């Protein structure tokens, strides 16, 4: 390798002044990036991986400062360089792309003009040829019809397209180093793959170095030469990506690796290895009768027309264009004791479907048979008092949002018992609460805390305890781990599996993550544009997908090479 690295960080320490005093976000971090190398920084939330990259760019928040160490970029001491010099460096020598691409673009400036701003600033263009160069950049990041898109505003473009524009901004001045901070988080798997492939192709072609910051080990493994694992502000392991996955040295790396869902493993494999034998899983009784039977379920929304103000004043419906079909006549069953995964990318109708089954949303047409009773025809409003209500429960996507900030954990868990559990004494309710807390592994002393005093994993447990409080037959899990770090996700997934067996429930698991679905579910339903494209046993669908779209989805998900 080249003797002098492009970027050399040694003993970097970054501190933030907060209400509770000084917090060290990054502590004694050392690593180098060689010319043309792609380095991945991997870690869970709060590991300091983003802060490290902001320190390289010197764009830390007002409260943050580089307290110690040095950053050398091609011979320049970044820490002591003056601000005007740093501004010349940013965008020209080092550039950055961010997560949430739509927010990263000025919402009221044409994307072409934003490209020109950067080109003109770094004298890569003069006003007379700026437009031409901007369109050329759009071409390079494979945006079709670039002359038209030059005039587009960010809100008129898709998330993937916005990320390409942000990427074009970063490439505009042919910098030597690109920092990509969670560039694909929040994008669908297929979009993610397209964006990442483009990034790799264009940076390689230009001989650029890249730092890829991500929480996703699979992504790091698929695209990086070298991987740096961070935990709580410190680097715990640095190794070539070829070896780090085969032979992780640090216990944290091993834990992270294990917790990452991947093909060919069981749920149990996600957790750290222990000596004790996993509890023998009881044989699931499937009596062949469907618990839930959905037939020709349709949900349509009226389209918002123009001139709605006047129309709404007089209560008139806007001129009826063809309504938007969120769910277009789908049918499936969930057997007793079975876990069914409902998979698809954003906007495929999976959440709408789950809301209708939960009877929080009224279907336009079709039937929902639950335990032999057609509950689809009952109005969502009146279903609150229906005897079937306790039998279908739900675990929500965002554990924070799903807990009333003014209720303690105990109050949240006991809410269903108080409402629908029949008249029980306060002591009985409390006892049941504690029993549920034990079931979900929530320490009893946390029961009297408020949501903001609990961690993400603990909040998820409270949400699960609430859902199973009345011994439901069916629990709908709406991306229950999407907001959690992988190590917490591993624990929660195992808990869900264990509870299912112990309480003989059925799950309808809504997710975008095929690997997670594979781990937890017996059967998988793949949805796209409101329709089911494929369904079958999880093993079959994920190892031998029949539909083209399923194959595409599977190919898009990066997996660590274990």
């Amino acid at each position, binding site marked *: 390798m080249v003797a002098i690295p492009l970027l050399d960080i040694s003993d970097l320490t970054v501190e933030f002044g907060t209400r509770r005093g000084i917090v060290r976000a990054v502590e004694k971090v050392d690593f180098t990036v060689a010319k043309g190398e792609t380095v991945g920084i991997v870690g869970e939330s*709060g590991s300091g991986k*983003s802060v490290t990259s902001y320190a390289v760019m010197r764009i830390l928040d007002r409260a943050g400062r580089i307290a110690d160490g040095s950053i050398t970029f091609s011979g320049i001491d970044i820490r002591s360089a003056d601000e005007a010099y740093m501004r010349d460096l940013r965008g020209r020598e080092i550039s950055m792309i961010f997560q949430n691409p739509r927010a990263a673009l000025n919402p009221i400036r044409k994307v072409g003009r934003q490209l020109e701003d950067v080109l003109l600033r770094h004298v890569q263009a003069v006003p007379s040829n700026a437009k031409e160069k901007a369109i050329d950049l759009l071409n390079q990041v494979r945006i079709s019809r670039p002359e038209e898109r030059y005039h587009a505003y960010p809100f008129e473009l898709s998330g993937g397209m916005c990320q390409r524009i942000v990427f074009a901004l970063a490439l505009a001045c042919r910098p030597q180093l690109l920092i990509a901070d969670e560039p694909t988080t929040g994008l669908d798997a297929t979009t993610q793959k397209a964006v990442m492939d483009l990034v790799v192709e264009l940076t390689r072609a230009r001989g650029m170095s890249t730092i890829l910051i991500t929480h996703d080990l699979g992504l790091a493994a698929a695209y990086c030469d070298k991987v740096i694992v961070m935990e709580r502000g410190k680097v715990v392991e640095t190794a070539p990506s070829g070896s780090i996955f085969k032979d992780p040295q640090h216990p944290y790396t091993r834990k992270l690796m294990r917790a990452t869902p991947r093909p060919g493993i069981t749920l149990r494999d996600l957790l750290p290895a222990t000596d004790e034998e996993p509890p023998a899983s009881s044989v699931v009784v499937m009596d062949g009768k469907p618990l839930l039977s959905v037939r020709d379920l349709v949900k349509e929304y009226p389209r918002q027309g123009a001139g709605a103000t006047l129309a709404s004043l007089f209560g008139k419906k806007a001129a009826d264009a063809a309504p938007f079909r969120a769910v277009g006549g789908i049918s499936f069953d969930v057997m007793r004791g079975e876990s069914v995964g409902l998979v698809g990318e954003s906007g495929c109708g999976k959440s709408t479907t789950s809301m209708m089954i939960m009877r929080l949303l009224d279907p336009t047409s079709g039937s929902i048979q639950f335990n032999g009773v057609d509950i689809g025809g009952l109005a969502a409003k009146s279903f*609150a008092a229906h005897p079937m209500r*306790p039998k279908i*429960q739900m675990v929500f996507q965002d554990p924070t949002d*799903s807990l009333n900030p003014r*209720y303690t954990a105990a109050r949240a868990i006991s809410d269903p018992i108080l409402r629908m559990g029949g008249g029980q004494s306060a002591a009985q309710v409390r006892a049941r609460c504690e029993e549920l807390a034990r079931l979900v592994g929530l320490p009893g002393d946390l029961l009297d805390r408020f949501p903001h005093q609990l*961690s993400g994993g603990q909040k998820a447990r409270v949400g699960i305890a609430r859902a199973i409080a009345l011994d439901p037959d069916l629990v709908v899990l709406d991306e229950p781990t999407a907001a959690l770090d992988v190590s917490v996700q591993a624990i929660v997934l195992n808990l869900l599996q264990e509870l299912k067996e112990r309480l003989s429930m059925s799950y309808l698991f809504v997710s975008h993550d095929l690997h997670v679905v594979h781990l937890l579910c017996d059967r998988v339903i793949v949805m796209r544009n409101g329709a089911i494209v494929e369904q079958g046993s999880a093993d079959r669908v994920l190892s031998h997908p029949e539909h083209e779209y399923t194959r595409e989805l599977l190919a898009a998900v990066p997996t660590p090479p274990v």
Partner: protein
Amino acid sequence: MSASTIPDAAAPAGSQRLAPIKSLFSHARYIVGDNPVTGLSFGLFMLFLVCALIGPYLVPHDPLASDTMAALQRPSLRHLFGTDQLGRDIFSRVIVATRLDMTIAISSVALVFVLGGLAGIAAGFYGGWTDRIVGRIGDTIMAFPLFVLAMGIVAALGNTVTNIVIATAIINFPLYARLARAEANVRREAGFVQAARLTGNSDARILLTQIMPNILPIMMVQMSLTMGYAILNAAGLSFIGLGVRPPTPEWGIMVAEGSAFIVSGEWWIALFPGLTLMLAVFCFNLLGDGLRDIVDPLRRT
């Protein structure tokens, strides 16, 4: 990883306080410690409250007794704030006026808090027709310059203090209704409200136990902030001769009486009631800002 570069310093630690009251209290203490102005404004508020409650029994002179021999006297030890053109003691009049001004402000704000709050919450939670009607009423009121509308209402309804209260409540209605609507609307689809639906809560119960308690603090802040505006509004109306009539002591009308003497240099007649009025409004605004910091630390500016 969040977009912010601030590390997650608020992560729950093991030694969390358990009681909510205690935690709120310590947070309040932090705010006051950080911002003594809030503490000061609270003290000032108590002072105004005391004046309103027992002021009339404390003042050295009869606020209505005129003494032409002692007219237009500068501030002195005998007359702290001087005397007006009829020889009335301005200090006594300013103190006594506190009760009337506070009563107008508090009753109009309480009225609009209940009406606007309820209408807004219903609009935000139920949507549809309720929302449309409440929104339309609010929009119509907002289509007027508010003080001008208040003038029109008082002129039409009749020139009384009660009508000042009603007019002030009406012009504040959209503010409360919109705030309550927005807050109720974002919570309508919140996960915890959905969860409450799943556990068999009726709509009314959800409104009462899930939505209201979460909106109340924000509404209280709004109340404190509009108190100042209500006082200004009432004083403005009486300044142009609406509502309160002379010789009743009221800050706005006292400034109006003093305004004629400003050009001839008798500054104290208008200055003291004006300063007191300003102080009262200032106090409520600071208090509102402080309360907002306590209730909603995220919105601190």
